[in-house]
């Protein structure tokens, strides 16, 4: 019990620290939020230009929920780069904290920050376009976001090891990985329009199931039970595979960094 309390306190350290950092970098946070809102508006306006209500909703879900997924993914995947840049990586890595507690703290913050960010974006979009969501099944959207976040976290943990192994190129690799998730997951279109080979890849992206499922729930009002097998089960399987895999990969990468002295370098 004492051990769990100590580890929870340690996890909270990462949540509190990240909120403090967001507060101190508030100018950048506002800038990113404005960029996200403007970007989402610009994308969804394509639907209005086409005078297509369904397209508006499709783009709105894509813009909003991709915003959420990318915020969560970025915060988790960039935690190593961030600390390396600040020069605190060694301090954090030598603290008596289990890596799982560290990753848990970063994840909690990522989800809370992602939800806050996305709520603002979604609110602006709903008011701007006067969206009618009276048919929407919010439970479907909520469940998919919750379960989907877990698998995204697993991928984020694996991505976080890239800057641990490749000090400079790691960041670039994370950026490329995020771009590929955007391309393969049908953020603004159905994955059925992708070439067949790309569709095979998209089946392994949790974002594919999250975005498609959220669209079904919010636009068509499909209850969660109807898409449990097609959307929820793949996400649960991915979470079960990706999170332990992410933790294992992180551990291996840390061991490699300690062997080669790569924790030392600062950005």
């Amino acid at each position: 019990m004492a051990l769990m309390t100590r580890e929870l306190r340690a996890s909270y350290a990462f949540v509190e620290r990240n909120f403090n950092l967001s507060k101190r970098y508030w100018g950048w946070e506002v800038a990113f939020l404005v960029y996200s809102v403007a970007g989402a508006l610009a994308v969804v306006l394509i639907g209005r230009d086409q005078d297509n209500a369904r397209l508006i909703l499709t783009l709105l879900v894509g813009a909003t929920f991709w915003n959420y997924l990318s915020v969560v993914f970025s915060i988790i995947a960039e935690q190593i780069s961030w600390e390396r840049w600040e020069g605190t990586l060694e301090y954090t890595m030598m603290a008596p904290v289990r890596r799982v507690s560290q990753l848990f703290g970063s994840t909690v913050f990522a989800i809370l920050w992602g939800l806050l960010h996305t709520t603002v974006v979604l609110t602006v979009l709903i008011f701007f376009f006067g969206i009618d969501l009276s048919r929407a099944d919010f439970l479907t959207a909520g469940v998919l976001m919750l379960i989907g976040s877990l698998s995204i976290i697993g991928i984020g943990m694996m991505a976080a090891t890239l800057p641990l192994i490749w000090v400079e190129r790691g960041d670039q690799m994370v950026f490329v990985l995020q771009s590929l998730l955007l391309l393969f997951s049908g953020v603004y279109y159905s994955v059925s329009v992708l070439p067949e080979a790309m569709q095979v890849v998209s089946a392994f992206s949790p974002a594919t199931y999250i975005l498609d499922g959220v669209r079904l729930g919010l636009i068509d009002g499909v209850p969660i039970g109807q898409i449990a097998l097609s959307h929820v089960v793949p996400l649960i399987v991915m979470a079960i595979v990706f999170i332990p895999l992410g933790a294992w990969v992180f551990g291996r990468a840390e061991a490699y960094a300690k062997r080669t002295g790569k924790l030392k370098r600062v950005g």
Partner: protein
Amino acid sequence: MTVTLERQGKSTAEDIAGGQATEPTVAPDGHASGAAYPSTVPALHIEHLTKRFVVGGRRKRKTVVAVNDVSLSIPRGEIYGVLGANGSGKSTLIRLVSTLLSVDEGKVEVFGHDIVREEMAVKRLINRVSVDAAFFKKLSPAENLMYAARLYGVDARFARTEMVRILGRLGISASRINRPLEQMSRGMQQKVSIARAFLTSPVLLLLDEPTTGLDPRSKLEVQAFVEEIRDQHDATIVLTTHDLEEAERLCSRIGLLNDGRLVAEGTGAELKAGVPNGRDGGDGPSTMHDVFMAYTGRSLDDDHEEKPADDDNE
């Protein structure tokens, strides 16, 4: 020529093995304590420690032995100085003890805990101050210290009170602890760094060139604080420096590192006595500079440092 010294409190492998299963004692405020360990167990015991790095690009890749077969034992309560030029292996040695680098060969024990097999137990007993004050510079001292307190399991209320007291002792007033660290001078930042380490009450404090780059006044304040820790608290300190006077002033014993090897060890007086002639071969008393020249064959100004291989450049 190497000065061989009697090591106070040196324990046998059997003595140490007795403490291996022990978890560090944790006080109600969350602080670890070394009180649970027999006085015969050294605070730090290193046997034949070796660490190699691969340096250079793909075409000019070579292996450098950063720490080469180093053995030493530091009893509880001592300030042990590690003296050497840049690139001599001082920081690598500290990083190995800090669990930031993996051990290639040899053994390191902190209060009898093996740093490989009992990494978490060791981490609870140590803290480190590095040459570059590693902080979130946008955060205030209070925010940085609270982060450290939570990581080390120190009670938050205790930490809030204690950080004001420790920072005050180091000349940083309560009115400054909520301003971003980036607004503070390098000297002030280093003092906050020492306060952060001290807040977690480590029983083994690793100070890696804590006064390098500080102005003379800040340097003296930091040195005085280290002396205060030595005199008033149950802490063992390993201090790396290339400041000969600082090593002589603060350290009970000094080890000289040269090219990763421990080439001499002893008190300042013992080391100087081991060098027969004074500066420039004259008749005057030997100085630490003479000692350094005698054992390393170079001046402290002949600094060099090699970087580990960078896979990014492949």
